[in-house]
């Protein structure tokens, strides 16, 4: 289980902001944690999947898409901030993500 440090948090945020700025062709300064991915950025689930692939590669994560899918059904992501939080949980817990629901 990876430990999330302040620098990991910053790095993830930077990657997510840059990703949506490029993909949705908006100025990065117009994105904040409350930005709605679908309503404000016209984003979609494919972008979410691509980001997961990027983080999987970057942090060498052992995580199945199916696990993330099951988690996302119960914890839907609507904003950039929620997406960052979920990515951090994925990095931290990998395939044990669903255990969070059992614990809570």
């Amino acid at each position: 289980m990876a430990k999330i440090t302040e620098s990991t948090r910053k790095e993830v945020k930077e990657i997510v902001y840059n990703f949506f700025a490029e993909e949705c062709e908006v100025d990065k300064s117009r994105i904040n944690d409350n930005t709605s991915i679908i309503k404000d950025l016209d984003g979609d689930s494919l972008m979410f999947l691509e980001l997961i692939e990027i983080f999987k590669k970057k942090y060498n994560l052992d995580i199945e898409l199916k696990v993330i899918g099951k988690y996302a059904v119960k914890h839907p992501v609507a904003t950039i901030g929620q997406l960052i939080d979920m990515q951090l949980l994925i990095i931290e817990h990998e395939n044990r993500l669903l255990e969070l629901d059992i614990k809570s």
Partner: protein
Amino acid sequence: MSRFPASSIQHRERSELSSGIASEASPDRERSEPSSGIQKTGIIGEGKMGSGIFNYLLDFDLELTWICSKEADIGKIQKQFGKRINRSLEVGIIDENKYRSLQKTIISREISDLYQCDLIIEAIPEDIGLKRSLFEQLHPVINPGCIFASNSSSINPSILSTPDLRQDKFIGLHFFYPVALKNIVEFTVTAQTSSTTRSLIHSFLDKIQRFYLTLNERNSFILNKLFLDVQLEAILIVNEGHCSYQQMDEIIKKHMFPFGVFDFMDSVGIDTMLVSIGNYITGYPNKSYYEPLVSKLQELVREGKLGMKTGEGFYKYPLEPTPTNEPLETAGIAEHLYQSWYSAVKRFTAQSHIPIGDMNFAVKEYFGLEKGPFES
């Protein structure tokens, strides 16, 4: 790691034999079929399913052509694809070889770009007329060896083909949404589907690492039909006043599936649900049994409440969190629904002769369950 359950591959042959009705096509029609398997694959449609299938197939060693409708912003789609593969190369998700091969991907509006395809999968709206017309346009301009597949979730392939439309190479390939997450495909064969077509599609589905059920047209769309029985039971219980739509969905999410029956229908689209259910029950002797569900969907369609896409269906969107009380009969309702579902699973499994291990896995994938109906 293989995405196939250990038992499924060994059971597959038996499954086909029991449900199979394949006839051999004449040798001259076989000549131009791909000898070394399906490589060039076309996808038609840029909706949720078309884009989902296209994006899923990108991960495999295939040459893809994606045909989008005239309404699609093709420039934007092409640009996004280019950015995506560039990013994938930059961060090391793909290597140079894969990048070069992905650069050959064709994204266009011209169906003639599909000419050399070995397999074409259509994923356009669920409309018999539209789909038939598409296949009629495709047939004269596409390589005669190409297999035509429909991703329809409710229309049998024989309804979409005519005697002069390569019937030996006409099939159903029903992927499920979201394609990236649902490891299940319903492969529907007709009485005319050749053994070569079947074998090529089996290899293709193995190559793209998707578990599949091979079905004949009597048992086609078995997973949606199975869910239909739960949807019907749920609306009957609501109509009898035992609980509200929201309470019913809460009960289902708590006791059975990760999604509710009514929010599922809103998400698919009420109009699409209505058309699909009409197609499923066409051949049923007890059509009137489904009347309570059909008439509610007809009412919503008349009112323009087509689900999430119009802002209202069974629910109003965006959803506002409204706490609900659990109905007194929660345990009884949950038990009744579970028993209805379980007996439907057993009935469909017996009728279709699908091996229990295969059905168990398919049901698990479809409903997103941790444990299948046949696991203790």
